[in-house]
């Protein structure tokens, strides 16, 4: 198999918050169809990198190329880039004043300018895909955490993105609903979606990721296939981190 084209390329990316160095020179790449999991302790910079990817945060140094083109600065061009990336948040961030299906229709109707019927069709298909057709009329307040996150995934997919960004999608969930969200993500991965996933779910990373990147203190300490990271980590700090999670590397 020939290597797929690079979709996202991070070159020496730096990000500061005042004196705090959130990212100090991060370089990695994501290829089309790959699932890349970013792991590491809290505050190690993995969420910051994800948020830089769709320009919710601005870079303080280095370069980020999407499809070979550096991320633009002008608002209109940034919006175009964001339309091609879906994002799923830790706290779901569903719009509470809209029903599940209206949440999913929001992007297509507001941003893509699809007709009501067109965006409804698209939204229904996506709710079916995440197994929530019967909840289409529910407001987020009347959905469980796992259901809300599945709607949030459908909402992001409604823009037909080329890349999906997941920012700790299961961290705010009750243990019993984590599985249903991970299953939806697994299905997406199997369909060939390019995914960048910040996660603490090591089993998921191990099973689904093509490439795992380990962060610590704003730097990548190790990256490679899951087999390497989880079974034979090269770095002592990777072993330490996995050991703290109870992972026996």
């Amino acid at each position, binding site marked *: 198999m020939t290597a797929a084209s690079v979709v996202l390329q991070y070159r020496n990316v730096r990000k500061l918050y005042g004196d705090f160095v959130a990212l100090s020179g991060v370089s990695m790449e994501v290829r089309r169809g790959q699932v890349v999991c970013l792991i590491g302790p809290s505050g190690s910079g993995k969420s910051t990198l994800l948020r830089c990817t*769709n320009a*919710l945060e601005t870079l303080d140094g280095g370069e980020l190329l999407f499809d070979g083109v550096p991320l633009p600065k002008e*608002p209109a061009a940034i*919006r*175009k880039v*964001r*339309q091609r*990336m*879906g*994002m799923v*948040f830790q*706290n779901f*961030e*569903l*719009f*509470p*004043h809209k029903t599940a299906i209206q949440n999913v229709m*929001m*992007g297509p109707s*507001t*941003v893509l300018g699809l007709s009501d019927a067109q965006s409804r069709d698209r939204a229904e298909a996506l709710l079916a895909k995440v197994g929530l057709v019967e909840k289409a009329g529910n407001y987020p*307040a009347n959905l469980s955490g796992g259901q809300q996150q599945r709607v*949030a995934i459908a*909402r*992001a997919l409604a*823009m037909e993105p080329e890349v999906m960004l997941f920012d700790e999608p299961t961290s705010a969930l009750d243990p019993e609903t984590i599985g249903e969200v991970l299953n939806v993500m697994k299905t997406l991965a199997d369909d060939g979606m390019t995914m960048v996933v910040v996660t603490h779910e090591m089993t998921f990373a191990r099973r689904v990721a093509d490439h795992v990147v380990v962060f610590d203190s704003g730097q990548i300490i190790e990256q490679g296939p899951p087999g390497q990271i989880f079974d034979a980590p090269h770095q002592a700090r990777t072993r330490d981190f996995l050991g703290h999670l109870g992972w026996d590397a």
Partner: protein
Amino acid sequence: MNLDWSIVPASAGALARGALITIALTVLTMMIAVPCGIGVAMLRESRLRPVAFLATCFVELFRNLPIILVVYWAFYVMPVVFGIAFSPFLTGLVALSLNNTAYNSETFRSGIKSIRRGQTEAALALGMSEAQAFRKIVLPQAWRRVLPVLATTWVTLFKDTSLVSVIAVGDLAHTAMQIRSQSFRVIEMLTAMAAIYWLLGYPQAKIADWIHKKFGVTE
């Protein structure tokens, strides 16, 4: 004590006209002060410092002046300083609108601030512009949150419109006071005035209570 209640039915037409003017003042003031309040709230959050500063000055000035003073000011000072002379009704409307715009802007500002940043980010991540995110996502949620406060402001405003009677606007209070001073039926007219204000105000207060219950606590 010699009471003659016939003055009340005899003045029914005038009182009804006064009540209509009071209601019109309340409705028009809110129709002006709600959008202007949202506008001033947005100006206060402007990235341009001078704009935010001026908006803050406006709010702090009119929020902290007694309405009656603003009414007098609009009536006596505005024509002299700015050369604008409105009818008493318009003058009263301006004064009440200035005061309520200041109040509403604070209401909306706290409502808008109470919507967490993640909501805007979720909208931006879909590819919306900042303006779309504000209009479609933040404002509708803030609106529901501030509705109970707006309802309370409304009820207060309805009663506060009586303050414009000092510039002869012809509202309910002014009309009743006029009839009182012409007929010397003080107790009768003050009682009638109280009854009318209460009968009109009570349902509004009840509606406000209902809004508090319906929209008060969510999440």
